[in-house]
């Protein structure tokens, strides 16, 4: 082990930290029902390990770092586990560790006794989930990758079904597990194609294998299918809006913020690292799927009334943006425009990192709100900014970031993505030249709608009046929860303020993947990824300007209106007899979008008559894909299995006959 440690010190450190995660999980089983032990000791410990993983990931991103390999003395005989730490895995490890640390600290204050699974068991599942995600990023052969991937799916399945006594949660869990396995099948087949007949399962052998163009495309499509299922690409997204809300909030945060990123990692690893190059239609297909997903996700997010479902659909939108960026990178790479591919990839990486931060932050904030109020339906919340000022402040940062507003981090990545789209005229292909810029319009639409969604999310939960009188008793989050939220919010602010650092870090990865980096520009304070005279942005200067303007306004208002400010009821509009039920509701807020994009939804609505004494309004919005793709598939499967059931008549003699005939058949084959 000594020579290993000297040959690959960072990788050994990461493996040790992964082992420590597993150990912490195992310690949870010592006293499975002791909430204090699990929450106050083990989860903070897990958070510390997360910081270590992040640090190791950052170390792998330093300029002097060379990829480190290890062959572990684990696995099957003659099929050991291979581990490799390079810039790409380092980047995603940094993402996993840093966001995971925030979620762990929050969880320390969040988990309580008596909610489904015992805390100790939950702690084990949680840390196995984290460790398996780290192993996915470290794996350097298909065998270890699939083992880690399936461990990840299973541990998260158990976390989703924490409250397994509720039938709808069991149903959501089953759907998730089913889709996870279908996706894993795609990935497995993809690796099966990639080894190119050599039957070597290491990624190195797959990189070296030469495939016919047809098989390369097959491998790519399988990877897109497999990782797309995990990422929630439309139409493979159906599990996501069910599973994310079913899980406890920290788990939703992990699944949305971290686990979806393993799919992004896998897609990058296969399509850009292991497949040497491909035709441009790969990129176009990925781009189209990504754009469709982004638009679809955000449109559905606008009409949701459950706050966690809303965030889940918003995750679909963000994954769509990320996948669209990967598509662009593939298009550019197929035309050997390496710098532009690097630009697209930079946007992808930064957006993945940002999404891990702000989506985790928002899911955790919903967790605090749910604990404080017991409500998750937007129709029963409101006015919580007075009761939960800390959570409200952090959620505001998250909402602004996800809406893509400067000077926060969401703006940086979306701006970079748009910049990339603006470079498409440089593609030497007339057709693509015209088609791809349309994507920029879709991205802008999605970004604007995302802003709309966040206004709804934040406004309905935190602003206005309490829609239920019980909300007046809501208490703010505990200090451990606040630390977790603050950590993630700090990340949003820092990436927004110093985007040029993020650009440099992503550059290490793009150098490894497409052999080019994006220059940050001549000035250390400004980011000019394309050319300084075309577009440049400085988060820090924006912050300075914003703070100066706000401060000046505040001082001016104080100076001129001293003693003349007064507090009144919110949304009053001069009408003094209004009740909290007269406020704009979540349904009402989404109505214009529902109207505009009517054909997208499958709406079931009950509108009361004006004469109704007890009026009741009910609306149910469903996914069209469910009825169009999945139900026919399910019916087909049902029919086939019913046919197959005939084989299982229950008669022993018939079963014996099957074995007998099989034997005779095999003997005939030998003959």
């Amino acid at each position, binding site marked *: 082990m000594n020579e290993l440690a000297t040959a690959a010190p960072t990788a050994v450190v990461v493996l040790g930290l992964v082992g420590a995660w597993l150990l912490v999980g195992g310690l949870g089983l010592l006293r499975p029902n002791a909430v204090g032990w699990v929450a106050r000791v083990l989860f903070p410990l897990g958070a510390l390990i997360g910081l270590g993983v992040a640090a190791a990931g950052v170390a792998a991103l330093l300029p002097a770092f060379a990829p480190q390999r290890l062959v572990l003395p684990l696995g099957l005989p003659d099929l050991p586990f291979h581990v490799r730490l390079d810039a790409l895995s380092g980047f995603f490890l940094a993402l996993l560790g840093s966001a995971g640390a925030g979620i762990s600290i929050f969880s320390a204050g969040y988990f309580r006794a008596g909610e489904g699974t015992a805390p100790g068991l939950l702690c084990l599942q949680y840390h196995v989930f984290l460790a398996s995600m780290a192993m996915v990023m470290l794996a350097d052969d298909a065998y270890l990758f699939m083992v880690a991937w399936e461990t990840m799916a299973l541990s998260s399945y158990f976390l989703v079904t924490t409250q397994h006594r509720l039938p709808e949660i069991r149903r959501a869990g089953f759907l998730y597990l089913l889709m996870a396995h279908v996706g894993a099948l795609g990935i497995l087949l993809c690796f099966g194609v990639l080894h190119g007949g050599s039957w070597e399962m290491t990624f190195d052998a797959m990189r070296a294998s030469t495939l016919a163009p047809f098989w390369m495309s097959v491998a790519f499509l399988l990877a897109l299918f497999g990782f797309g299922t995990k990422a929630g690409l439309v139409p493979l997204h159906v599990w996501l809006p069910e599973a994310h809300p079913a899980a406890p909030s920290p788990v939703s945060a992990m699944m949305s913020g971290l686990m979806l990123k393993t799919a992004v990692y896998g897609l990058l690893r296969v399509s850009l690292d292991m497949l040497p190059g491909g035709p441009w239609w790969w990129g176009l297909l990925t781009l189209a799927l990504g754009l469709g997903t982004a638009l679809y996700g955000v449109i559905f997010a606008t009409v949701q009334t459950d706050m966690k479902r809303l965030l889940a659909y918003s995750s679909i939108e963000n994954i769509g943006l990320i996948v669209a960026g990967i598509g662009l990178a593939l298009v550019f790479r197929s035309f050997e425009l390496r710098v532009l591919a690097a630009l697209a990839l930079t946007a992808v990486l930064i957006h993945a990192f940002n999404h891990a931060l702000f989506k985790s932050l928002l899911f955790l904030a919903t967790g605090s709100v749910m604990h404080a109020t017991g409500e998750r339906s937007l129709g029963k919340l409101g006015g919580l900014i007075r009761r939960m000022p800390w959570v409200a402040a952090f959620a505001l940062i998250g909402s602004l970031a996800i809406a893509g507003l400067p000077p926060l981090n969401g703006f940086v990545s979306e701006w970079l993505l748009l910049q990339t789209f603006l470079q498409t005229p440089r593609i030497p292909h007339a057709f693509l030249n015209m088609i791809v810029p349309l994507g920029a319009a879709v991205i802008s639409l999605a970004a604007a709608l995302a802003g709309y969604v966040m206004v709804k999310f934040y406004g309905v939960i935190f602003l206005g009046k309490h829609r239920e009188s019980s909300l007046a008793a809501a208490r703010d989050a505990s200090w451990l929860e606040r630390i977790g939220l603050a950590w993630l919010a700090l990340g949003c602010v820092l990436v927004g303020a110093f985007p040029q650092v993020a650009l440099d870090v992503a550059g290490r990865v793009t150098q490894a993947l497409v052999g080019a980096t994006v220059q940050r520009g001549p000035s250390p304070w400004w980011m000019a990824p394309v050319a300084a005279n075309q577009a440049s942005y400085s988060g820090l200067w924006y912050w300075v300007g914003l703070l100066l303007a706000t401060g000046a306004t505040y001082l001016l208002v104080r100076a001129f209106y001293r003693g003349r400010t007064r507090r009144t009821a919110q949304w009053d509009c001069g009408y003094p007899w209004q009740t909290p039920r007269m406020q704009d509701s979540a349904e009402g807020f989404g109505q214009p979008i529902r109207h505009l994009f009517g054909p997208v939804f499958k709406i079931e609505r009950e509108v009361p008559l004006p004469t109704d004494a007890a009026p009741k309004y009910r609306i149910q919005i469903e996914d069209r894909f469910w009825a169009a793709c999945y139900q026919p598939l399910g019916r087909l499967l049902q029919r086939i299995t019913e046919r197959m059931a005939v084989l*299982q*008549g*229950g*008669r*022993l*003699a018939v079963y*014996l*006959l099957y*074995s*007998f005939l099989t*034997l*005779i058949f095999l*003997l005939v084959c*030998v*003959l």
Partner: protein
Amino acid sequence: MPAPTFATQVLQTLAGALLLISFAMLAERRSRRLVTLLIWQGVVLVTSTLLVAVTAQQPHLFFSAALTLALKVGVLPWILLRLMRRLGIERDNEPLVNVPTLMLVGLGLVVFAFGLAQPITALATTVIRQTLGIALAVILLALLMILARRKAFTQVIGFLALENGLFFAATTTTYGMPMVVELGIALDVLVGVFIFGVFFFHIREQFDSLDLHHLETLKED
């Protein structure tokens, strides 16, 4: 082709006897007679193993023969007869397929087995060549017997006949398996019969009968 020696001829006669016993088992309905036939099959096996041991000078086959004698002529029939008495089994019901049809199918299987064994016997250098086909036929006939019978008890006898066929194939074509393997198989068969015995009692307790069609009610719809 050199003229077959006396020992070879005797061995072929024994192989023929084994096949004949298999057919007899296929047609027999009384449980007690089935056990008797099983004992006869064991005796034939012991004789043939001794013969191979002498002609091919394979001393370890003497141990095999002794083991077979003790197990297949002694212990197993004793257990089976005891079970029969305890469970009050007299005769099996009518087979699922009537006996003449079963015989015809069995003939077809013998032809198939000989055809199957032909390329292998052409390569074999051991004393006995034609016996492999017979051994395969015995195995297939035993499978057919398991398939066609209704009662669990008869199926166990079929299972033991199957094992006899395998043993015969092993001794005559390759001078027996390694001692360790043979001991292991003998132990397996013994344990298997014990477990079957336990199952008999359970099945009878549950359904008041050893007729296996009662198990069909266990299927979930």
